[in-house]
């Protein structure tokens, strides 16, 4: 029997994303991929998946997902207030985010709104049984490729699951919220910092910039003080012979306002790029909401590489440090199996006292 999650109510902009479609930029193919690779990475780890498994990237508001499988393990990561609906007339019950949950056939996961960020993730254990395109499941909606039919999720979509059911094991949760960092967004000058006047470069690193309403998976347009080009714009000061666009490239067209190019960015472009966001801070940018403000500070390539390696180590520590999550009175299955090897069953009482009954049928209160 086929297993699926059915989108019974669509969110705002929810797409399947993995870590991106690399290797085809030379053919004009944008990489796409998760706007916040840390959020996707944590969701996959909570669900027990390899890091590059495609999950649902939630954009602002998530869908309602009906379980059409014996069981499915989902992991939610991000500032969500999800709810679980047991059946057609059942009232919604709150669920915690930043953890995994085992859902049964007929239950509906209401992912709901994200609070204070633009991006969150839902991963399913085993991933989705969808064909990859050019080596990736990432949705690139402008060309209608990848993910589910190359587009954002819509009501009625049936997302096929790779696993028809999952065993009951301990659910996992983040021990503490991941620290995405604070303070100014770190950038590296270039590739075209010489297209800007010294005053223009100073403006860029000494001003506050606000995320405009024009912010999506392709790029984030900022509002703030105008950055002066070195040459007059009407004399080609904002035109270059097109070159490659790296993730986080900050292009400044003639109007002088910075645009940070994100996951769905085009592969090449003809505007000068004053600086590039350090990869350590791209996930932070991928979570920004219109109206939020940032400052930029310049660091070196070597510093950026070191910060990224440090962040990766912290991510791995967060994953090895996952805590066991269970409902009050629920049983700790790992301890049950481990302790069973020695002397029987372990029960966990709601008041968190562990008793070791002398026989397997004993111990209920």
């Amino acid at each position, binding site marked *: 029997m086929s297993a699926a999650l059915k989108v019974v109510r669509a969110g705002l902009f929810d797409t399947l994303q993995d870590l991106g479609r*690399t*290797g*085809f*930029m*030379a*053919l*004009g*193919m*944008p990489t796409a991929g998760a706007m916040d690779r840390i959020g996707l990475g944590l969701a996959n780890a909570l669900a027990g998946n390899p890091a590059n498994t495609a999950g649902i990237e939630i954009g602002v508001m998530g869908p309602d997902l009906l379980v059409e499988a014996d069981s499915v393990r989902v992991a939610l990561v991000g500032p969500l207030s999800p709810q679980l609906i047991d059946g057609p007339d059942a009232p919604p019950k709150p669920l915690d985010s930043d953890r995994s949950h085992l859902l049964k056939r007929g239950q509906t996961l209401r992912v709901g709104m994200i609070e204070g960020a633009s991006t969150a993730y839902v991963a399913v254990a085993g991933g989705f049984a969808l064909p990859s*395109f*050019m080596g990736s499941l990432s949705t*690139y909606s*402008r*060309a*209608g*490729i990848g993910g589910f039919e*190359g587009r954002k999720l819509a009501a009625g979509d049936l997302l096929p699951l790779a696993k028809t059911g999952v065993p009951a094991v301990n659910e996992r949760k983040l021990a503490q919220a991941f620290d995405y960092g604070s303070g100014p967004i770190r*950038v*590296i*000058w*270039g*590739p*075209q910092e010489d297209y800007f006047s010294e005053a223009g470069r100073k403006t860029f690193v000494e001003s506050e910039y606000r995320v405009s309403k024009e912010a999506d998976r392709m790029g984030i347009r900022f509002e703030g003080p105008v950055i002066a080009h070195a040459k007059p714009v009407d004399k080609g000061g904002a035109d270059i*012979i*097109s*070159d*490659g*666009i*790296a*993730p*986080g*490239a900050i292009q400044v067209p003639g109007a002088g306002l910075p645009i940070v190019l994100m996951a769905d960015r*085009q*592969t*090449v*472009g003809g505007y000068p*790029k004053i600086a*590039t*966001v*350090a*990869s*350590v801070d791209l996930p932070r940018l991928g979570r920004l909401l219109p109206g939020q403000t940032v400052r930029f500070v310049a660091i070196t*390539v*070597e510093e*950026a*590489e070191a910060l*990224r*390696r440090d962040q*990766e180590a912290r991510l791995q520590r967060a994953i090895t440090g996952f805590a066991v999550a269970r409902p009050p009175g629920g049983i700790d299955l790992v301890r049950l199996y481990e302790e069973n090897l020695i002397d029987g069953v372990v029960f966990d009482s709601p008041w968190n006292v562990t008793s070791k009954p002398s026989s397997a049928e004993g111990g209920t209160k």
Partner: protein
Amino acid sequence: MSVRYLSCGDTAFTVEFGNEISPEINGRVMALHAAIGLAQEAGEISGVVETVPTMRSLMVTYDPLSTSRAELQPRIDTLIARGLPVGAGSRRVTIPCCYDDPEFAPDLAEVAERTKKKPEQVIAAHLASPFKVYVLGFMPGLAYVAGLDQALFLPRRSQPRVRVPRSSVAIAMDMTTIYPFESPGGWHLIGRTPLWMFDKRREQPVFLSPGDSLTFERIDRKSFDRIAREVEAGTFDWSSLVKGK
């Protein structure tokens, strides 16, 4: 000839061969693109994710968790110093194009008027132009193809079209292009090919590659319709259009 290394954050850098558009410079870009690919296959370079050629530069993207700029840049220098085999192994591609139908070529008369030619002369000049694919970008499979006969140079239309049909063949400045999708566009439409430059059903969805030499071949409406049916059905023999490599 020296190159400039431009920083693109901590996951990429650009190797700039010059600040102008020329076949020589682009040849060196394509040669380094190929050389890095070969060095990766030979295990001489690791940590490179991909390389992105443009008219005059090559962007190298890398994984900062498995290598670093300080480690990679000298390796690229070594490859350049070793000498790059320019122009080796490029494909020669033929694109069938129907110029006859006014629906396909709505700008042909205007192009003829503005270049002081007859429409037939515009077509002949397009057919005789020695085109080369310099870069793909803007959208998947959209190729910037330079080499247009100088007599046809025109700026882009002052009023871009909101909808240019897929597979339109267009010219602007010193270039020609073929629209992979229906999209907005400001180039002059002088014909249409029955081919799809992007077809997600194909194993290699993008037909053209940077470095391809390209010529157009004139077809009539009947041939256009026949090839279009085969392309639509997925039965068209694309290899018949490609020679070399």
